[in-house]
């Protein structure tokens, strides 16, 4: 895709890279050959975690704001689902119809995210990570202490998706397609957003906020709007998460899990929206099958080490590794392929994450 094709609006099937087609066919056909365990516990779960990490990727990769509170936002949506809808704990459970519950939960999460953004964007750079971490920890302790609204340590159980069109949506195959639709939808939205006027302005603000301010852009507003969009993504993911687990408790939104989301996004790569999903798949596979290799208890050690290695040696994550590998390969074949490499370069992949 050359840069002209990107903005002129012309689009044809020939522009689509064969790898994307293969991936799409694989994702759609996946339930036909995988077992229920692989569809639900691996497939759907990866997509949910990937979607939460996608909201972080959008903020961190395009906005330069590493927020550790994205899981907290998703968690609030999950809690709202249990509080406003139905649960089997006898606490709250206002019994709203499912569609209203979903809308209000997602909007509530998005507003919460906007609020976190409004609080944290007034400061620069490294403060964001501290403030959002403080928010995440404070929210965790709050829901654990509060029994009136959040049912304290136990949390809520028995939160179910509705039965619609005669399909029970928590069955593996329908649930997989539901998460796939949401994940692909938001992937496309983020991918499009990065090329929209708003996305380009956001990336420019990431690279040089002072210059953008001087050009007349409202830096703070752009950042807060980015938090709102990220909140919508995380909110939907939170709804799916509570349907997936059937329950939500302080453990769901613990600090260790919030950091797992950061690990997923960073290990996958923060430069492209596909990164979080790669990271999520790697994470879920590791979580399920590392038990065979090491003690279950030491799983965090493996995750921590993997994260540390990625941060130390490949700051762009798995995507960075892949790009490096591809570049090396291309470099060798350069004589044959001519300047194709230049034209195929993704314009967004040249962005930097560095703080200004």
């Amino acid at each position, binding site marked *: 895709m050359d840069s002209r094709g990107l903005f002129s609006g012309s689009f044809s099937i020939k522009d689509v890279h064969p790898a994307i087609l293969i991936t799409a066919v694989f994702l759609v056909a996946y339930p036909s050959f995988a077992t229920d365990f692989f569809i639900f516990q691996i497939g759907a779960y990866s997509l949910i975690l990937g979607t939460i990490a996608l909201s972080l990727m959008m903020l961190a990769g395009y906005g330069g704001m*590493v927020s550790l509170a994205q899981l907290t936002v998703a968690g609030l949506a999950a809690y709202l689902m249990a509080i406003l809808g139905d649960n089997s704990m006898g606490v709250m459970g206002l019994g709203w119809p499912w569609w209203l519950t979903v809308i209000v939960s997602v909007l509530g999460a998005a507003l919460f995210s906007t609020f976190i953004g409004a*609080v*944290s964007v*007034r*400061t620069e*750079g*490294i*403060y964001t*990570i*501290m*403030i959002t*971490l*403080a*928010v995440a*920890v*404070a929210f965790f*302790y*709050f829901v654990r*202490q*509060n*029994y*009136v609204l959040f049912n304290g340590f136990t949390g809520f159980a028995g939160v179910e998706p509705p039965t619609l069109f005669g399909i029970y949506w928590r069955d593996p195959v329908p649930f997989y397609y539901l998460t796939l639709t949401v994940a692909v939808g938001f992937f496309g939205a983020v991918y499009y957003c990065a090329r929209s006027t708003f996305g380009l302005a956001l990336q420019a603000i990431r690279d040089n906020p002072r210059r953008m301010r001087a050009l007349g852009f409202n830096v703070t507003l752009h950042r807060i709007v980015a938090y709102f969009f990220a909140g919508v993504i995380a909110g939907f993911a939170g709804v799916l998460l509570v349907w997936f687990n059937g329950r939500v408790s302080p453990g769901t939104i613990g*600090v*260790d899990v919030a*950091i797992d989301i*950061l*690990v997923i996004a*960073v290990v996958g790569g923060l430069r492209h929206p596909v990164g979080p999903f790669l990271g999520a798949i790697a994470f879920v596979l590791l979580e399920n099958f590392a038990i065979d290799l090491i003690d279950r*208890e*030491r799983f*965090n*050690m493996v*995750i*921590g*080490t993997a*994260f*540390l290695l990625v*941060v*130390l040696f490949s*700051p762009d994550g798995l995507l960075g590794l892949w790009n490096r590998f591809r570049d090396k390969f291309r470099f060798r074949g350069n004589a044959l392929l001519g300047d194709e490499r230049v034209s195929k370069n993704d314009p967004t992949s040249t962005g930097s*994450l*560095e*703080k200004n």
Partner: protein
Amino acid sequence: MARVMRNFVERHTFWAIVLLLVVALFLLMIFAVWPDWLVEAMGRKKTFVNTLLNGITLGGLYFLVASGFTLIFGLMRNVNLAHGSMYLLGAYIGYEVADRTGNWFLGLAVAFVAVALSGILLQVLIFRRMADDDLRQTLVTIGISIIAADAMLAIWTGTTYQFSPPDWLFGATTLPVVSVVKSSGAAVYIKYPVFRLVVLAIAVAVGIGLWVFLNRTRIGMMIRAGVNDREMLSASGVNVQLVFVLVFAIGAGLAGFAGVIGGTALSVAPGEDIRYLLASLVVVIVGGLGSISGAAIGALIIGLAEQFGLAYFPTYGVVLTFLIMVVVLAVRPQGLMGGR
């Protein structure tokens, strides 16, 4: 100090008066015998005085933890999110030493030195390689804290440990504060654990020590110069890397030191690392990153807020802490004492 106070009074006369009135009110509430209507409104006086003292001593503990955090950030722009792990590591090491030798003070000293050494290792092996990339440094500290938490869980398991400090540090003392006057006319005095008062004394001592170190010694002068302009300090012939290592050692050592103090005042268990990391974060966000006096003020505010929240509105205690943080960020994003 006197000049600083006079400056403050001259510049913010209104706030100085408000502050003075609040302090006077608190003193009055501590020493006067409460009339019935006040008891009705606020509960027993004993609860209030105990909560106040708990808040101040907890603030002292938070200051010990957060001062290291803010010192490291002030000079190196390194947000060390493994600071909570260092606190917990110090507590465990201190416990092992104190348990084996039976000497609590030895445990305290060894914890300081051991954690300071681990800080030096981190600075030399990792952070020096990625200077000027503070986001990556922060991510690395997150990775380290994940690994450290898991390693400590593997070694010391999930058990809760309790220090046994010397007897004269333990037990309770009677304060010269009257709780209630019985109908017989005899006054009942309030008792308070000695160790908590010791925590406060240590925090004050460390605070004064840091102030003297930073303001009255040559190395302190270098550190302050480094906070203002690292390149200029380096250009004037100071080995900045050595100063970094020293500051990192002191900051990490303070975390380990606080681990033993906090572990003795409360207890040692997995999960405490996150709790004290949160405390450090909120304290420095409120107080202002990189400022020692900010850490002291922030620690006092957060300690008090947490204890009063716990005593007077139990299930919403955390919200109070959080609200303070939000209000400070809205009014003064750089923190109460933050310069930049």
